[in-house]
């Protein structure tokens, strides 16, 4: 596990605009102009977000200067997700026990009502 890289990934993900950009790129490549459209944001502002995503390895960009389509790098996202998985499991187990407990409570209540 490369902590610094993961840290950069999570920092990049900790912004709603950048998450929206990634969500858009999940459906295919897009140019800076395409990406700027849904946001009320200047092209330089969008470019700044793209730079952060690119540095974190979450996207790659084409080589042509004028026409640099952005592409999602799913592998890096998966690494970040794998890292969070254990934390998620920790919570999920608690919630599953809560579900089971609520089920018991309901069953006990039904028993009482039936007698």
């Amino acid at each position, binding site marked *: 596990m490369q902590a610094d890289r993961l*840290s950069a990934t*999570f*920092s990049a*993900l*900790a*912004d*709603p605009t950048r*998450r929206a950009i*990634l*969500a858009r790129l*999940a459906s295919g490549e897009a140019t800076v102009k395409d990406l700027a459209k849904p946001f009320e944001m200047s092209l330089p502002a969008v470019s700044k977000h793209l730079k952060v995503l690119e540095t974190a390895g979450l996207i790659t960009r084409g080589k042509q200067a004028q026409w640099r389509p952005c592409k999602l790098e799913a592998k890096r*996202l*998966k690494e970040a*997700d*794998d*890292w*969070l*998985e*254990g*934390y*998620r*499991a*920790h*919570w*999920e*187990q*608690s*919630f599953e*026990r*809560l*579900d*089971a*407990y*609520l089920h018991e*409570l309901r069953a006990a209540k039904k028993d009482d009502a039936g007698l």
Partner: protein
Amino acid sequence: MQNHEKKMRVALDSDTTVVVTRFIPAPQDLAFDVWSQCRHLQKWMLGPPGWTMPHCEMDLRPGGAYRWGWRKEDGEEMFITGVFNEVDRPHRMVSTECWGGDWAESLNTMTFTPEGEGTMFKLVMEFPSKAARDAALETGMNDGMQMGFDSLDTYLSQPL
């Protein structure tokens, strides 16, 4: 019949927060109570496998303190302590959470929103720094690994 999104979500909405959301199959009052009364908590909030929750004290009012403690089979114990800032049954509860020692305190806001036949639970944990947030995630992650869960495939099939 409405189809609820019951799957749990963990989101890192900023560098210093963790947001956990989950549908609870119980009416709002009961959902709040299972999170705020020892007689309920000690039945389900048992910690990692092999642990029980023998200690629970809660003074459920603004300014009141709480203390939760777990014990492992071999006798090892761990505690969480904190103070309630807001208690608004059955809607909302705000409290501090501290694991002791060098651990940074988090400010936890729980909200309970009726949804269909049950309640949507949302917990926002705010940490003083990114380092403190990541350390807390790392600890929880290790617990989770021990549990040997694997729900990654289903998670990845969800839209981002």
